[in-house]
C-alpha cells in the first residue's frame, strides 16, 4: 500500500515541463537519420553508423521498457521474462534475415549454415514461409503474443500473482533459453543468427537501410507512447491500477481481472516482439543469451530507475542505463559493474520514484 500510494503520488505530479524536453528529444531523434545520410562524415554534425546503431538499439530497449511498465508499473505484474518476448520477436525477424542471405553463406546452400553443419537436408516446417518479410513479422508479433496468451491465461486464471508470477515468468524465459541453446531446436543454438546480408534486397550495412530502420524504431516508440497514453488515461488504465492495488476488491465490483490482465499482458508481449524485430537488423545478431533471466531483470531495472507507473519514466530509464553502460564499459571496463550496481542501489534507496521522480521533485522546488 505504501508503494501504491507513493506511486500514485508520483503520477499525479504534473508532467507539464517534461513535455518540452520530450519534444526536443524527439526532434533530435528524428533528425539523426538525416544527419547520418546527408552530412559529411568529417563534419561535427555527422552521426556515425556506430552512434546510429547504438541509439537505435537503445530505442528498441526503450520500447521494451515501456511495454514492461504497462504490465509492471500499471498492472503490478512484475514480469521477469519480458526478454523472452523481445527475443522471440528478434528470432522471427532473424529467420527472415537468415533466409535473405540466400546462397551467400559459407556453405552456399539453400539452408542457413547452421542447418548445414547439423547435416539437415530440408527446412523444418516452422521455417516455412520465413523468406517473406511479412510472414516473418507476423511471427515476430504473433508468436510472443500467442505464448503470452497461453501462459497468461494459465497464470491469471489460477490467480498466480506477485512473486509467484515473477518467478514463473523467470522460469519460462529460462526454459526457453535452454531450449534455444540446443542446436537441435532449429534456431542456431548458442550462435543464434548472425552475418545477415540484406533486408528486402537492401544491404544491411547500407546507410539508407540503417537510417530507415532507425526511423522505423523512432516511429514505433512514438506510436507506443501514444497508445500507452491513451490506454492508461482511459478507464481501462484505471482498472489496471485497481488490479495492481486491490484485485480482489475489483472482482466484487463486477470486473473480471483475468481479461484485463490478459489484454495488457498480450499487448505488452506483442510490443516487445515488434521491438525485437527492429532490434535484430540493427545489431546484426540474435541469440538465446537475450532470453537469459539476467536480461529480463535488467529490463525491470530500466523501468525502476526511470520511474515506474509513468510512461516517460521507463523510456528515460532504458536510455539512461544503456547509455551509461556503453560509456562505462569504455571508460572503466573493470569498474563498470560497480558503477552499475551502485546506480541500482542508489536509485532504489534515494529515488524511489526513479529519475522521473527526481526531475519532478526538482521542478516542484523551482
Amino acid at each position: 500500500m505504501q508503494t501504491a500510494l507513493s506511486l500514485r503520488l508520483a503520477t499525479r505530479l504534473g508532467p507539464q515541463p517534461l513535455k518540452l524536453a520530450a519534444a526536443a528529444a524527439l526532434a533530435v531523434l528524428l533528425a539523426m537519420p538525416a544527419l547520418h545520410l546527408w552530412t559529411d562524415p568529417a563534419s561535427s554534425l555527422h552521426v556515425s553508423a556506430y552512434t546510429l546503431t547504438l541509439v537505435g538499439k537503445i530505442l528498441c530497449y526503450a520500447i521494451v521498457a515501456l511495454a514492461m511498465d504497462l504490465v509492471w508499473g500499471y498492472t503490478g505484474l512484475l514480469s521477469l521474462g519480458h526478454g523472452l518476448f523481445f527475443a522471440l520477436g528478434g528470432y522471427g525477424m532473424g529467420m527472415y534475415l537468415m533466409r535473405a542471405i540466400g546462397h551467400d553463406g559459407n556453405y552456399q546452400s539453400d539452408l542457413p549454415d547452421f542447418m548445414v553443419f547439423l547435416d539437415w537436408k530440408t527446412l523444418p516446417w516452422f521455417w516455412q514461409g520465413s523468406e517473406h518479410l511479412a510472414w516473418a513479422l507476423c511471427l515476430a508479433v504473433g508468436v510472443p503474443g500467442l505464448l503470452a496468451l497461453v501462459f497468461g491465461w494459465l497464470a491469471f486464471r489460477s490467480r498466480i500473482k506477485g512473486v509467484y508470477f515473477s518467478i514463473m515468468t523467470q522460469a519460462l524465459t529460462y526454459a526457453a533459453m535452454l531450449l534455444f541453446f540446443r542446436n537441435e531446436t532449429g534456431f542456431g543454438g548458442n550462435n543464434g543468427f548472425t552475418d545477415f546480408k540484406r533486408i528486402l534486397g537492401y544491404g544491411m550495412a547500407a546507410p539508407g537501410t540503417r537510417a530507415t530502420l532507425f526511423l522505423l524504431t523512432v516511429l514505433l516508440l512514438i506510436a507506443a507512447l501514444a497508445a500507452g497514453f491513451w490506454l492508461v488515461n482511459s478507464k481501462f488504465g484505471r482498472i489496471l491500477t485497481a488490479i495492481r492495488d486491490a484485485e480482489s476488491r475489483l472482482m466484487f465490483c463486477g470486473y473480471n481481472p483475468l481479461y484485463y490482465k490478459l489484454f495488457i499482458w498480450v499487448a505488452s508481449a506483442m510490443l516487445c516482439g515488434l521491438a525485437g524485430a527492429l532490434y535484430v537488423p540493427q545489431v546484426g545478431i540474435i541469440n538465446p543469451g537475450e532470453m537469459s533471466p539476467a536480461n529480463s531483470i535488467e529490463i525491470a531495472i530500466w523501468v525502476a530507475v526511470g520511474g515506474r507507473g509513468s510512461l516517460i519514466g521507463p523510456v528515460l530509464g532504458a536510455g539512461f542505463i544503456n547509455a551509461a553502460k556503453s560509456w562505462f564499459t569504455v571508460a572503466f571496463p573493470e569498474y563498470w559493474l560497480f558503477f552499475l550496481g551502485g546506480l541500482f542501489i542508489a536509485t532504489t534507496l534515494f529515488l524511489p520514484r526513479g529519475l522521473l521522480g527526481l526531475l519532478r521533485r526538482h521542478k516542484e522546488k523551482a
Partner: protein
Amino acid sequence: MMPVTTSQALQRESWDGDTPASGRLLQPGVDVTHGQILYLDDISVSFDGFRALNRLSLSIAVGELRCIIGPNGAGKTTMMDVITGKTRADSGSAFFGQTINLAQHSEAEIAQLGIGRKFQKPTVFEAMTVQENLELALAGPRSVWASLRARLSGQQRDRIDELLTLIRLGEQRARLAGLLSHGQKQWLEIGMLLAQEPQLLLLDEPVAGMTDAETEKTAELLLTLKGRHSLMVVEHDMDFIASIAGKVTVLAEGAVLAEGSLQQVQADERVIEVYLGR
C-alpha cells in the same frame, strides 16, 4: 464477459429517484417469481475440520431488509463469502432468484449479476481518489472493450456528485482513498456499493467505527433503500439494529439459532445466553 442481466435503461434509474419499486427489482434475468431473491439451502463450510457453517438455510425476500446478528465467529462473514463466491460451500446450494446457481459463477460474475458487498474491514482502492473509486464502481458494462471506450456521461457525473454528498466526502473527492480515516473509508465503501446499484446489498458491519450520529444517518439511508433493493445487514450494534430492523436472524455456530422480530429474538433465552449477555 458481457454483463449477464443488465439493461442499460434500467440501470440509469437512480435509486432514490422518484420512480419507486422499479428497476432493479424487476431486472430481467433474475427470476424472482416466488418473491425470494436469495436462497441458501443446507450450506456447510468447514476449514481444516472446523465447521464454520453448519447446514445453514436462509432466504431473503425481494425488497427485504434483513438483519443478521450472532456471536463472533458464528459464520456471518463466511456466509457472505459463500454468497459472493469468495468461499465455495462444501455442500448445499445458494441461489440468486429461482434460477441462478451462485456456485457456478465467479466473484466478478456474481457482482455483475447484481450482488454487492461491503466488507467487514473497509476495502477501497487506496491509490485512487475518492471520486475515481466511485467511478469504477459505477454501474455499467464491465468488459475490456467497453472500458477502453468509456467516457463519463453527464448523468454519471451527477450521480457521483450525489453520492459524494450523501457519504459526506464531497470535500475529499480529490484525495486519495488511502489517506482517509477508518470511518471515512467505511462511508466510501458504502458509496461504492450504492454506485454499483446492486439488487442485493450485503453489508458486513456497516457502522463499526462510526459515531452515533453517523450510525443514525446510515440507518436512515438503509431504510430508504429498503423496498427497492434487498439488503442483508450484519451488525453487533443493537441500537442500530433496532432503528432499521424488520426481520432479524440470529446465527450461532454456523446455523440459524432464532429468527423473528427484534423483540422476539432479544427475548429468546438462547440468544441472550450466547450473544447479548445478561
